[in-house]
């Protein structure tokens, strides 16, 4: 399927995210069910397939996060292992792509290439791998390799990891005989024959989710999809232009890399109704305790003495405060604190109001018609190629979207009404895997 219909409208690619460890899932809501039971995963996956989504997406975290030396207890926490869940989902879905986030630092290419090839075989060509690159020693305490990988080396290892995996995927043509792969590099030294012949997609679809310059370059060279954070139209267009602009260097065209920002949707029968629901959800997402914790992550110090309904702390952040472990690295803590302070002063926000303002803004709020129009506009104006939808409720959080918005997107001619192909690569309109780098 090409990126545009005859009428010239670009097609929207949709994915469903099953939120794992996170602070935005509203678990107090009576509609919130298990984060772990297979029935929950099955519900969200089948909803996504009913909505003709491209794929179902699972994130990963390999150590429980800590604050002040103790396990963080305010977030949704606990999740099953992705590839095993996805293999089970392959049995209860037919077309939906199945994407697992798996770290390149705490795995070995031979084993992981085989696990993804297996998922691709069992699902008939629906596997995708989101390659992430944690290098922290905190996570490393659960693994043989520990955390000795320098931050600067993370994409070096990821690139070499993918190179080896690709060589393995390529090495056993269907109906042919397996070739031996020999690789000797700074990270890996292996001699191997693949355990499996070509899977239906040969290479699973590759996803990248980092945002640094190295991350973007890695995406341009390697990935089929970028999972981005840049959900607003302006930021989306800038990011889109930047990353797609890097593709020509690798002999690739803009259609060969799909940029899918995370997005959240709140629907209402009127605009006002939707805004009201959105505000209600935001308050549910940010409890008083979570508000304090949000600030502590930036301030790097204990702020439990402060009133969540009062003004921001009158103290400055601590340099290198090791208060929280397992969260994304915050490069510019002082800059962030200063920006938050001025935002709070400008809008007269309490700690909790600020946290609500910052951490839980929905991307699309409106009636089904206005949301469908806004999503379409995003995609037609190169702010994104589609969206990875993150529901605030599991597992029923996308039911309403699929019932009310999907038909409107289909009417607009920007979302398929039936799957055209069998594989995830078909859904994404991607060419056969590129094999030039793995020779």
């Amino acid at each position, binding site marked *: 399927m090409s990126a545009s219909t005859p009428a010239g409208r670009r097609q929207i690619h949709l994915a469903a995210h099953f939120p794992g460890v996170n602070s935005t899932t509203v678990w107090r809501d009576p509609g919130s069910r298990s984060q772990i039971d297979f029935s929950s995963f099955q519900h969200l996956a089948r909803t996504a397939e009913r909505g003709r989504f491209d794929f179902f997406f699972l994130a990963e975290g390999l150590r429980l996060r800590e604050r002040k030396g103790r396990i963080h207890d305010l977030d*949704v926490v606990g999740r099953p*292992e992705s590839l095993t869940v996805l293999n089970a989902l392959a049995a209860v879905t037919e077309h939906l792509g199945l994407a697992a986030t798996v770290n390149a630092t705490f795995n070995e290419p*031979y084993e992981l290439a085989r696990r993804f090839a*297996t998922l691709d075989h069992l*699902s008939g060509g629906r596997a995708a791998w989101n390659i992430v690159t944690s290098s922290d020693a905190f996570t490393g305490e*659960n693994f043989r390799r520990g955390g000795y990988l320098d931050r600067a080396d993370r994409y070096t290892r990821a690139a070499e990891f993918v190179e080896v995996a690709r060589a393995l995927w390529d090495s056993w043509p269907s109906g042919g005989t397996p070739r031996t792969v020999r690789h000797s590099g700074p990270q890996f030294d292996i001699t191997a*024959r693949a*355990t499996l*012949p070509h899977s239906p997609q040969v290479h699973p679809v590759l996803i990248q989710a980092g945002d640094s310059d190295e991350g973007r370059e890695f995406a341009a060279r390697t990935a089929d999809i970028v999972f981005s954070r840049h959900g607003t139209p302006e930021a989306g267009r800038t990011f889109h232009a930047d990353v797609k602009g890097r593709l020509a260097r690798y002999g690739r065209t803009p259609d060969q890399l799909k940029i899918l920002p995370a997005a959240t949707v709140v629907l209402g029968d009127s605009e006002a109704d939707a805004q009201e629901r959105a505000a209600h959800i935001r308050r549910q997402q940010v409890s008083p305790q979570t508000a304090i914790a949000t600030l502590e992550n930036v301030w790097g110090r204990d702020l439990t003495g402060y009133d969540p309904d009062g003004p921001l702390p009158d103290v400055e952040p601590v340099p290198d405060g090791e208060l929280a472990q397992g969260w994304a690295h915050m490069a510019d803590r002082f800059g962030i604190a200063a920006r938050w302070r001025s935002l709070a002063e400008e809008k007269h926000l309490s700690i909790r109001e600020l946290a609500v303002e910052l951490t839980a803004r929905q991307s699309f709020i409106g009636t089904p018609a206005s949301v469908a129009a806004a999503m379409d506009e995003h995609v037609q104006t190169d702010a994104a190629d589609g969206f990875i939808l993150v529901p605030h409720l599991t597992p029923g959080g996308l039911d309403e979207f699929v019932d009310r918005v999907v038909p409107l997107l289909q009417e607009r001619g920007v979302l398929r009404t039936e799957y055209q192909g069998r594989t995830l690569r078909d859904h994404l309109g991607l060419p056969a895997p590129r094999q030039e780098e793995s020779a």
Partner: protein
Amino acid sequence: MTRELHLSVALGSAGPRSAAHWTGLVQLAELGALDFVTLDDSLDPADGDGRLDAVAVLAYAAARTSRIGLIPTVTTTHTEPFHTSSALATLDFVSEGRAGWLVDVSTTGEAARAVGRRDPAPAPELWAEAADAAEVAARLWDSWEDDAEIRDAGTGRFIDRDKLHYIDFEGPRFSVRGPSIVPRPPQGRPPIAVVLDAQGRDGRWELAARHAEIVLLDAAGPAAAREARTELLKRAGRNDLRVLIRVTESPDRLPELLADWHAEAGTDGFHLVTTDPTEELPAVIHDVVPALRARGLFRATHSGRTLRDHLGLIRPDSRYAVRTETAL
């Protein structure tokens, strides 16, 4: 009165046939009310048609079956114990309590070179490491107490962190801090299985005595089997261990043979090792199983839901929950 016999089947390892093929075999085994199937695996480069990942195949089959136990082989030599424990706990979740783990090691140079992380090592060292991996898995499965998820709106807490535990395992080959990412699986701990030879007394025996709840025993005859089983139970110092004799006979001679062995060897049951499951499994289910039922030796349907139910194994408490109570 005859003791009920446990019956299971080895499906070999999963060549890259369709998912439907493997699922069909597992469904057939379920139809016969067998306790479980095993599926072999290793990281050795495959001969012939290739080999699918066993946990993956059984996870797929789990979604299309409801009673049969599912025991994949996962080797410990070139894998991460943390990942292995998570994958098996997850197999237990997707199957609603039907997962087990057949522990094995990899001694080959080929696998070592394919992974490229370490040189081949002698078997005794690898089995000692496998025992450490089993210990780590068990601790990680226990590391969330059963009621750790509290969803307490008043305090904003999703979990009670006092019910989550670091495991702090330190061994010669690896260390793991914990706790698990996956909450405690439905069975508490998916039962650990190991293949033993009645003749040898190698590192596998240590692992079996300390960690296994299912032993798949190779024995030359009923007397050797009886002796090995007695010794094993003594070494283990516990009776929650099911010893199943591995049997590679052709299906037509099986009912007679199994009845004799069961009477003479005092075993808990049999693990039928097929050379070609596509050929042999239908005969097992349609001929052997009814013949055993006719002798009053085998159940007509699964009476419980989990693998532990089928085997009559209790669901263990988390070791950490016990410790917390005694400390109070």
